[in-house]
């Protein structure tokens, strides 16, 4: 065998390999199917797009759209409705599945290399930095010309305007509030003889039940909410009446006594083993602990509901209520929900088919798509009308109250005004969490130090 492997063989294999490679490389770099001759036809596009299935032949102007979709179940509505849109309009719609965490970098790379998709979606936390880079296309005119159905039901549109000179660029594809729903183990509750939680229950109720669980079932935790440091953790801490990042998103108020109360509370919960520590949730999530029966409850955002049935797999019966009310809920005016979020889809600024892309945007984020998403996958919708839809309420009765809270919420999503979200979050995750997990001792001086460093980041100019 060794002798047979002559140089001739080597050369032959090598050239085949090279030829294959060049073919593949050529194939991969092939130009997108005919995106050129659309300019004059674009004027006629709006009417063609509006009457679905009426004249698909009119779209022989070769409109081709690319839409970035979140990989996995969360993005299933994007794929489904992109395909429906394509069928209805006759356009070519190509869906690019991208893993959620990679989307901001991918979009930026595409933007730099001039190869940006027409419609995309991203995590709200990264919206500001992409917005100030000019990635999004303002759609105010398009909205005025052809308002989406149920336009008023898109939550929290105003927040976007601060990053794009007051203009609107996106429509939400999934929305909710962080840490607003608590799921709890009914069987375990019965076992320990605790009081059934209601939507009006308080932190004291919460803690006392968790204590009961800890007493009667050693090794099992009581509950978990987002601790997450400076960004995600802000939502939970606002229960105590103040915040880490203020509503102007320019000032860090970590050392406000009310915020400190919250931090101390969380640290205490971890110390008393009512909340899981870092080692207990590493690599997984609180929800996994809950599903494994190792934690009595878990508090999270509404999207969490989607996979709970599979995760719990009928091991126990569980219920859902609104999260417990903290001190701020009793203040005047009562504040209940804190980090409303909406992950938005947007038309990108480099698109060659703005009206068609806008049509796709509306189709994917519309009430029908949202309702489909929730009914088919259990994920939370982005449009409030879907939140309140009777069919949705049949499987998610709590959604009605959450939708109300979303509309009444006045709090601001905590991303610094200079869009330096990652740096802000990293600093908080590494330093604040260390204190909450008890790895570093709590002290007012330590908190002041962290606040100073976070403020330094927030004080930087926009990149």
């Amino acid at each position, binding site marked *: 065998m060794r002798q047979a492997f002559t140089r001739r063989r080597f050369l032959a294999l090598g050239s085949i390999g090279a030829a294959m490679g060049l073919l593949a490389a050529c194939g991969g770099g092939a130009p997108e199917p005919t995106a050129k001759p659309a300019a004059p036809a674009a004027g006629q596009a709006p009417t063609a797009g509006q009457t679905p299935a009426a004249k698909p032949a009119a779209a022989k102007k070769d409109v081709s759209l690319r839409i970035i979709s979140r990989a996995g179940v969360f993005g299933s509505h994007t794929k489904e409705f992109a395909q429906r849109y394509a069928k209805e309009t006759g356009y070519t719609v190509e869906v690019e599945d991208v893993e959620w965490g990679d989307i901001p*970098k991918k979009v*930026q790379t595409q933007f*730099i290399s001039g190869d940006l998709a027409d419609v995309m979606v991203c995590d709200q936390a990264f919206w500001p930095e992409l917005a100030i*880079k000019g990635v999004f296309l303002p759609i105010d005119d398009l909205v005025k010309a052809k308002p989406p159905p149920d336009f008023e039901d898109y939550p929290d549109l105003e927040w976007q305007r601060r990053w794009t000179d007051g203009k609107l660029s996106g429509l939400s594809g999934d929305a909710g509030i962080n840490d607003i729903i608590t799921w709890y183990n009914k069987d375990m509750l019965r076992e320990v003889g605790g009081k059934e939680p209601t939507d009006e229950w308080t932190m004291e109720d919460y803690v006392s039940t968790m204590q009961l669980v800890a007493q009667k079932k050693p090794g099992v935790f009581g509950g978990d909410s987002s601790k997450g440091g400076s960004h995600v953790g802000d939502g939970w801490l606002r229960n105590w009446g103040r915040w880490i990042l203020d509503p102007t998103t320019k000032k860090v108020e970590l050392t406000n006594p009310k915020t400190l109360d919250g931090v101390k509370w969380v640290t205490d919960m971890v110390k008393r083993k009512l909340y899981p520590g*870092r*080692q*207990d*949730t*590493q*690599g*997984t999530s609180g929800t*996994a*602990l809950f599903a*494994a029966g*190792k934690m009595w409850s878990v508090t999270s955002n509404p999207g969490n509901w989607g996979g709970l049935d599979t995760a719990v797999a009928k091991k126990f019966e569980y219920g859902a209520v609104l999260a417990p009310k903290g001190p701020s809920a009793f203040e005047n005016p009562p504040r209940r929900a804190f980090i409303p979020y909406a992950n938005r889809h947007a038309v990108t600024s480099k698109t060659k088919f703005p009206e068609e892309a806008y049509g796709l945007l509306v189709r994917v984020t519309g009430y029908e798509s949202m309702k489909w998403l929730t009914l088919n996958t259990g994920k939370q919708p982005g449009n409030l009308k879907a939140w309140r839809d009777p069919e949705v309420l049949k499987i998610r009765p709590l959604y009605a109250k959450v939708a109300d809270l979303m509309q009444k919420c006045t709090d601001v999503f905590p991303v610094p005004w200079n869009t*330096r979200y*990652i*740096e802000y979050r*990293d600093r908080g*995750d*590494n*330093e604040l*969490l*260390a204190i909450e*997990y008890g*790895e*570093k001792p709590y002290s007012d001086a330590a908190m002041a130090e962290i606040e100073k*460093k976070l403020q330094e980041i927030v004080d930087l100019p926009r*990149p």
Partner: protein
Amino acid sequence: MGGEATSARAFPRALTAAGKLFRMTPSAAREAIWGYVFLIPWLLGLLIFMVGPIVASFYLSFTEYSILGTPKWIGINNFVTAFTKDDLMWPSVGRTFVYAFAIVPLGLFGSLLLAVMLNQQLLGTSLYRTLFFMANLIPIVASAILWTWMLHPKLGPVNWLIGQFGIEGPGWMASPTWALPTVILIGLWSSLGGNRMIIFLAGLQGVPKELYEAAEIDGARQWDKFRNVTLPMISPTMLFNLILGVIGALQVFNIAYVATAGGPSYATWFFALHIYRQAFEYFRMGYGSALAWLFTLILLGLTYIQMRTAGRWVYYAGEQ
């Protein structure tokens, strides 16, 4: 195929001219030209992919560059910041050194040990070699995922196994004190059976048997043989592996990026990760380039020291 005759016919004057210029005979000049010709791919690659980018990054290190706009010249400000204001930088350098000081010696001696074992003419050596090498073959993302799951403090098999012996397993990657040792362990798992081991194996096989026989005649016992014959003879291999090992270890990035994101609480926040964060996530490419240069200087310094002190312990058996 042309022969000497053809070339000589084709370029007689050029060669004699070149020869006169460099004081070479025409055939020597011809050899030199061919030498350069064959070198072209590498020279081009050097210029395009090494020299060019290095010069560019040197320039960038004196600028403020956030990808969005154009680089803005700020002189040595980046370097000043690195030495005075960046509170994450020097700890990250220290951490990286701790990692390197642990993994390089352990890695060297571990690989050597494995190589020695494989050199004992065992039955099924190729199987064992593959078993050891397998860890090296897995892409780093896969290793990270695998180990994160295996080392889960509460739900993973490792701690469960340890628990069977009555010991409570540590927090591994979720513990600020254990995260760094865990990363070191995973690094060792991944690399012990890898290229270094193969290189040691080659080195061991290259030791002439006569030396062992001569030592035995002098009454040497096994340990003496190892210490006085094997070790010196493979010391050049050790130097080679040491230098490459240090360079590789100081650049540790993948595992920290994929598995721990530099945490918990900065426990695995290595220098390479710090550079990456600054350049690609905190909008400071100019600063990132400056840090990369500081890193390079440290690396070059260390390599120089290693090569200088090599004379004291490396024994070349009359080669080179």
